[in-house]
């Protein structure tokens, strides 16, 4: 590949500050379940079932939910690590991989991902500097320039290049490896970074270091984060907006202080009260939810949370609630009949007033 074909033109702002960096519309992914040969109907895991959201520029959207709710699948669909069944994406005003829109290769340069397992996501046969330089080289950057950039990035994430550049992944601790993954993600100067449980596997004291690093990098490079985690404390700390998912659907979304202060969906409230208290005098006395998250294979119609919901009503079984803005705060949306006076749920109005 000749070097002149490589143009690492800085990725530019196209749509202006008001244009959300990423808009996702009605994303869907169903996985077929391997069943018996003679089974009449195929079963499907509804991993992501009609998810729509947008991420404003320079902000962090936190996605929370229990395992199996489709958080990671959503991330993979956005990064196009797997094809979506349906749905569309708009990146800074341009349709992704659409006629007249942004090409997939360029989209991927604008978007990078950091995964949970810091060890599995690094090539064990490359030194960490080579790992960081690998991507830019593939896109046509000269080797020497890529290595130089890798050293600079290592220094930026707090790993002294002279000491670390020639090490292999197994010679690093978990926190250091995750720093390498972050450095690799930054090698393309991306605008959107997807962090899929990026700090979940780290020890508490190291986790705080990495969170600080992420915050610094975000301010320094005007990054936008999509932060996926099951740890509600961490999401509260780092996010500007929060999206709560349950069984492949968004149940509530809004600014972080609204979600953590005035959660409107019963599931969000249950999730928040399931966090262990830090005060031995005020221990949790009753569990907010019984049972495990249900199986996402062929989920029931109506509201998917109704089996575990304390406010379930026949109307929840017959009609699926849609994501509606709350009165007075249109950015805060919840998919629950309780918040919709027109839904026919007997407790709906009183709940809104209280």
């Amino acid at each position, binding site marked *: 590949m000749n070097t002149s074909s490589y143009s690492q033109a800085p990725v530019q702002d196209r749509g202006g500050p008001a244009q959300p960096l990423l808009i996702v519309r009605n994303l869907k992914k169903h996985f077929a379940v391997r069943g018996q040969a003679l089974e009449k109907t195929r079963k499907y895991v509804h991993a992501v079932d009609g998810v729509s959201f947008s991420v404003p520029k320079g902000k962090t959207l936190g996605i929370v939910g229990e395992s199996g709710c489709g958080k990671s699948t959503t991330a993979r669909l956005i990064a196009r690590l797997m094809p979506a069944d349906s749905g569309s994406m708009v990146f800074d005003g341009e349709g992704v991989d659409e006629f007249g829109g942004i090409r997939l290769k360029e989209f991927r340069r604008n978007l990078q991902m950091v995964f949970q397992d810091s060890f599995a996501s690094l090539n064990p046969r490359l030194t960490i500097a080579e790992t960081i330089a690998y991507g830019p080289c593939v896109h046509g950057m000269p080797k020497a320039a890529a290595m130089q950039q890798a050293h600079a990035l290592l220094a930026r994430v707090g790993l002294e290049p002279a000491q670390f550049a020639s090490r292999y992944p197994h010679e690093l601790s978990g926190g250091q490896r995750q720093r390498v993954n972050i450095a690799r993600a930054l090698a393309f100067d991306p605008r959107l970074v997807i962090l899929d449980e990026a700090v979940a596997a780290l020890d508490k004291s190291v986790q705080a270091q990495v969170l600080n690093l992420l915050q610094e990098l975000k301010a320094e490079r005007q990054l936008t984060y999509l932060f996926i985690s099951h740890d509600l404390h961490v999401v509260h700390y780092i996010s500007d907006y929060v999206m709560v998912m349950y069984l492949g659907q968004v149940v509530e979304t809004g600014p972080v202080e609204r979600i953590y202060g005035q959660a409107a969906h019963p599931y969000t409230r249950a999730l928040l009260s399931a966090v*262990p208290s830090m005060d031995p005098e005020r*221990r949790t006395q009753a569990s907010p939810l019984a049972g495990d998250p249900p199986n996402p294979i062929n989920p029931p119609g109506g509201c998917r949370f109704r089996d575990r919901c304390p406010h379930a009503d026949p109307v929840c079984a017959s009609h699926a609630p849609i994501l509606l803005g709350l009165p007075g705060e249109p950015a805060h949306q919840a998919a629950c009949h309780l918040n919709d006076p027109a839904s026919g749920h007997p407790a709906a109005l009183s709940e809104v007033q209280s």
Partner: protein
Amino acid sequence: MTTPLVSLQDLSVQFCGNRKASALNEVNIELAAGEVLGLLGESGSGKSVTLRTLLRLHPERTTKIRGRMLVDGQDVLALKGRALELYRGGTVSMVFQEPGLAFDPVYTVGQQITEAIRAHESVTEQAARARALLMLERVQIPQAKRRFDAYPHELSGGMRQRAMIALALACQPKLLLADEPTTALDATVQIQILLLLRELQRETGMSVIFVTHDIGAAVEVADRIAVMYAGRIVEQGPVGQLVRAPRHPYTAGLLAATVGTENRGQPLMAVPGSPPDLAALPPGCSFAPRCKHADEACRSRVPPLLSSAGQAVACWHPLMPLAEAA
């Protein structure tokens, strides 16, 4: 003063296989009957090693154990053969982090609990089955009769952990060791398991050693917390005191690094550096390289664990002096 149920005296464990590592260094723990101790620490701090040593699960050929271990009046290190078998599961029992791996996949959950009961007591198959079923009901597994004949893979994560607890408690142990029992579970399920453990502990009056890296989980169940770092206990005290007024800089650092509601928008007070390599511990306090209060004394001599009035701290410069023994 009654004799404690568990008493570890200067317990040191060294692994000497291909790589050497001193996993535990002169650990002293005492636990009264009916008490719940939370063992808190990061990965590699020796929490799980302590539990495994208590059950003597380490391969003997490559493990050097020094010190004394007394549980319910028995010298654990001297146990052999049948006595050791009865001790494991009979006196002390363990709940593992990954219930999917701890169960045998080719037997049903009911069969495995029944087998455990019959291995310890001479009861008929029928009586053992009845008791196993009772245990499953006790840990609040819905439709226990049906789940009795289920294979482990047919149960969800939370249900498997409940079954694991039923198995551990089937022979009425005096001490339950819980090795991060809720780490692999979702938040809504985790709180259910924590509440269940607390309830069972209150009913049976057993002692529990609860290992976790999550301060929140420890606060929910434990009476007392011991903080471990690099194979040593660095601080010990009643839950409330330890959380509100930590004495060791490491405990304080852990608490400050725990993300809470208050610190949104500000940088976290992170502890710099990473935990030390157990194969090459520094000569003095193992936390000294990461500690901002460290001086020459810290780097040259290991601070002893000094205790007074139920609290103990191993630090040359504690953030708050121990209360004078009244």
